[in-house]
């Protein structure tokens, strides 16, 4: 008997497809909510993405009581406090996050304050602090990548102490994730590419890292198949709403996979690079993915080889000898990156980003060593290893 053991948890109702937004009033009413507040950012509002949400609610007689549209890309404790204040003043009773990772994380944190009380979100930082269900909460993702709609984590910057505060509790999970193709239809090409590659990395790392398990494997492989099939189609035809929906679903599926089986070195390096060089997360993921897979190769040969089926389809899989499949999976990902580079200049090396200097590599390596994602990388990473991977990713 093996020692294998795993846990899998995802209580988020997924509401996906055409006219999904129109289900919001029904869902909120079912949760006993009558006075929702929308948390979003200026970009989402400017893109006109709030209009269908508001229209869907008002047509059903559900008024949006308040809209906060000033969530910054890196949300802070001050912003959370401010939104919680408005929520209380306006006597709201539920939250709808419309946006990407930052808006969703902010709404999660606001939900802690308005449900548990107090003004200082830092008091709730850590794992297992929250013991009760929070207010009704829906998420409408507007990027297809982060998977935040199905993760039980939020990260908020404490501006006074300039540290990032993590919040972990299954109560942070929204009641429902509403995935409507209208929400990602206008996403610009480079963001579409970067966020899809973030989802691709979530699925690939979930499938190849230490905490992989049969249930998350199923979500991961399905997500990889959808991204491989749909990403370039969307890049060539941004208004292709069917394939937009495929990417959005893949992002949620990859989110379910990695929130249950974690990520590894790609994310550790990506988090450090994002913090030091201020590069978007998805871009870092796309950049490091093949280099890290090459580094982990001998430890993950079997699962990585299996992924070829989902990356390239049954014919390529069948005609590739089993002993070459892992390498072929890496080549497939490299090929996808080359295609993305052609279409939107998504960088493949640190040099191509134009925002990283070679002398920063050591700092990135050191910071990555302290990242939580290091724990689940299948290979024990030393500082020298991290440096070597960065060197290869340089140019």
């Amino acid at each position, binding site marked *: 008997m093996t*020692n*294998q*053991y*795993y*846990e899998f948890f995802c209580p988020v109702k997924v509401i996906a497809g055409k006219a999904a937004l129109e289900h919001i009033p029904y869902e909120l009413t079912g949760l006993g909510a009558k006075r929702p507040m929308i948390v979003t950012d200026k970009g989402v509002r400017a893109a006109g993405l709030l209009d269908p949400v508001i229209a869907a609610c008002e047509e059903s007689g559900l008024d949006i009581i308040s809209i906060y549209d000033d969530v910054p890309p890196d949300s802070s404790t001050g912003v959370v406090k401010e939104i919680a204040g408005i929520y209380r003043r306006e006597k709201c009773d539920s939250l709808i996050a419309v946006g990407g990772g930052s808006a969703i994380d902010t709404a999660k944190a606001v939900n802690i304050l308005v449900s548990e009380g107090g003004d200082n979100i830092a008091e709730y930082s*850590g*794992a*297992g602090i929250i013991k009760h269900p929070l207010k009704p909460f829906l998420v409408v993702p507007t990027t297809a990548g982060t998977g935040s709609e199905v993760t039980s984590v939020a990260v908020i910057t404490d501006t006074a102490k300039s540290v990032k505060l*993590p919040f972990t509790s299954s109560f942070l999970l929204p009641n429902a994730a509403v995935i409507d193709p209208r929400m990602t239809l206008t996403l610009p090409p480079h963001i579409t590419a970067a966020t899809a590659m973030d989802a691709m990395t979530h699925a690939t790392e979930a499938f190849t*890292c*230490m*905490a992989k398990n049969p249930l998350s494997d199923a979500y991961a492989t399905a997500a990889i198949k959808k991204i491989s099939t749909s990403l370039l189609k969307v890049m060539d035809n941004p208004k292709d709403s069917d394939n937009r929906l495929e990417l959005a679903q893949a992002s949620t599926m990859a989110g379910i996979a990695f929130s249950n*089986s*974690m990520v590894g070195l790609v994310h550790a390096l990506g988090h450090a690079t994002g913090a030091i060089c201020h590069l978007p997360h998805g871009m870092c993921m796309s950049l490091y993915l093949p280099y890290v897979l090459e580094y982990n190769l001998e430890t993950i040969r079997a699962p990585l080889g299996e992924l070829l089926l989902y990356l390239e389809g049954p014919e390529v899989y069948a005609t590739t000898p089993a002993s070459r499949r892992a390498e072929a999976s890496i080549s497939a990902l490299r090929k996808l990156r080359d295609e993305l580079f052609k279409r939107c200049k998504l960088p493949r090396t640190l040099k191509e980003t134009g925002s990283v200097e070679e002398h920063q590599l050591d700092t990135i390596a050191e910071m990555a*060593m*302290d*990242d*939580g994602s*290091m*724990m*689940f990388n*299948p*290979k*024990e990473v030393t500082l020298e290893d991290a440096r070597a991977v960065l060197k290869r990713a340089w140019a």
Partner: protein
Amino acid sequence: MLAKRIQPMAFQARRLYVELMFQVMGRALQAVSEIDATVQKEARALPEGFLFEMMVMPDGPRLIVEHIGNGRFHYHSGSAPRPVDLSIQFKHIAHAFLVLSFQEKTAVAFANDRMLVDGDISYAIRMTRILNRLESFILPRLVAKRAVKEYPANLHLPEKLLSAARIYLKVASNFVDTVRT
């Protein structure tokens, strides 16, 4: 209470083993931190006075060490002098036993949701690396390979310390043989 009546010896032995192993690890951690540059380098990033605890939920055996500065650890045999900064908590004594009898790697135990981290996750990563290094020292190579993700190539430690730790280990592995069924 019911279970205690059914298998009293095995349960007691397992608890004793975990307690003993925590003591062995605590002492070894202090000893290794006085000698090994790799452990010192890792530990230096921890604040001075940093208290690390490994314990079995809800109120079982625990191991407490303090970073007293310059990469050195001090083992606290009793209770913690103040609230700990980082706590790694096994959900059940059975899980602690799996890890401390080297049947499950520490990182795998994390991956398998056997334990929780209360505190800064980056310190938890650092402590896991230190514990891996420690296990490679005190365990015979074969057992250590099972306990850590990778066996380090550069182990230089006085034979005296090694043999001392291995004596503890012998006691410990006798326990495993007794308890394993």
